[in-house]
């Protein structure tokens, strides 16, 4: 499983890096950034789902790796 941020939609609310700081950080203007390759280990699946469920702009996607 992998997280992605749609940067066209992200407005820098920061819910992702508040709720899932292992998976997301912010840039110098406060926009969300995926840390590393975005791969989500089992330990962080809950965090990933919380970030998706709380993004006001619906800018985060959780992609199942095939």
């Amino acid at each position, binding site marked *: 499983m992998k997280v992605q941020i749609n940067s066209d939609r992200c407005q820098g*609310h920061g819910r992702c890096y*508040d709720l899932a700081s292992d998976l997301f950080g912010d840039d110098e*203007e406060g926009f969300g950034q995926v840390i590393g390759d975005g791969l989500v280990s089992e330990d962080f699946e809950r965090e990933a789902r919380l970030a998706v469920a*709380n993004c006001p702009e619906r800018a985060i996607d959780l992609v199942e790796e095939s």
Partner: protein
Amino acid sequence: MSVDERFPRDFRENREDGPPVGTRNEIITGPVSDWATDFSHLEPEWAADPYPIQDELRQRCPIAHTGRFGGGWLPTRYEDVSAIAYDTERFSSRAIVMSNFRPPKEIAPIGGSPPISSDPPFHHDARKLLLPAFTKTAVGRQEAATRAFCHSLIDGFEGRDVVDAAADYAQHIPMRVIADMLGFPPEDGPQFRVFVENTLEGINLPPEERIERMTALFDYLMDQVHDHLDNPRDDLTSYLINAELYGRKLEPSHVVGTLVLLLIAGIDTTWSAIGSSLWHLARNPADRERLVTQPELLPTAMEEFLRAYAPVTMARLVREDMHWRGVEMKAEDWILLSFPAANRDAAQFDRAGEVIIDREVNRHAAFGLGIHRCVGSHLARMELRVALEVWLERVPEFSLADAAVVTWSTGQIRGPRSLPLRIGTGD
């Protein structure tokens, strides 16, 4: 050192207090006959409790109209509020306080208080100037001082059984924080309160009085700009004075307009959020006790308070006549863009009318949606979290002293302005 000639003392441009440009309409006040056709966010019934009105409209007439303020619309469904927030082509931010005055079209795309009053493409560049100062990391540098200040306010409660959580606590926190960030004298707080009320609550005053009051705000800000020109320092005011856009320093109206925005929008919004949260906890002892024993729940609870008691409603102006989702909008009609109403739409939120402090899925729109997302949202969240943490740690027991004397602000920012709480165990 060369004198900065952008800021002559008599500087003023196309603002409500400037030359007689823009459009004024007849001021209509008094009881609302029908909320679907005559709404007003400035009447006492709305201030006291807008939610039943919004809920009823969402069922009966989801895009309500009013002839007041020269004509306007009130969408109450989340999907309509979000569509308007995202549609900067058809809905302009040239004015964002619904009033009896429409500024001249020539002030677009900058507007009176950039970037909140700006439209694309200018908006993006004006906003970019502010973003680095308001990231979570940047505002984190204010946290220790904010916490110490909250403690000092509660130290002041010593010996009292009843305190006003709005007037003695909530209002002071954002005033102090924004004064520090702008580099304004911290003792000017009482003046800030007057400026905020004049800007946001004085909407239906006669034009002369409104102009006089806005002039006082501009005079104050000009004094601050001049003080910073004489004594530059490491704060947002000096930053704006020196900032450049398109290879030149900012227009003076841009500098002062942004100062208006940061001062006004930074204060009563957060003051309202802190006050509403404490009001809720004072009336709901089970939630209060749970947060005292489980402080780790506070970040989640806080988002729920922001959803259910969202303090901020914005406004837009319709650009052109159009048929929009079943209504006939006219150019220059207002849109009262109620994020509070969107946040209570049952089509978007389960149990929308209930306050559930451990709500896990919460895509609320308290800080807006789209390009105008509140630039101070990270600052507001820091202040709200610290204010509630300190309060719950120091004053774990509290209840409403007298529900009858709780008063609420009127207009687009909603929060308690008088909130007497009995503190301690009351024995």
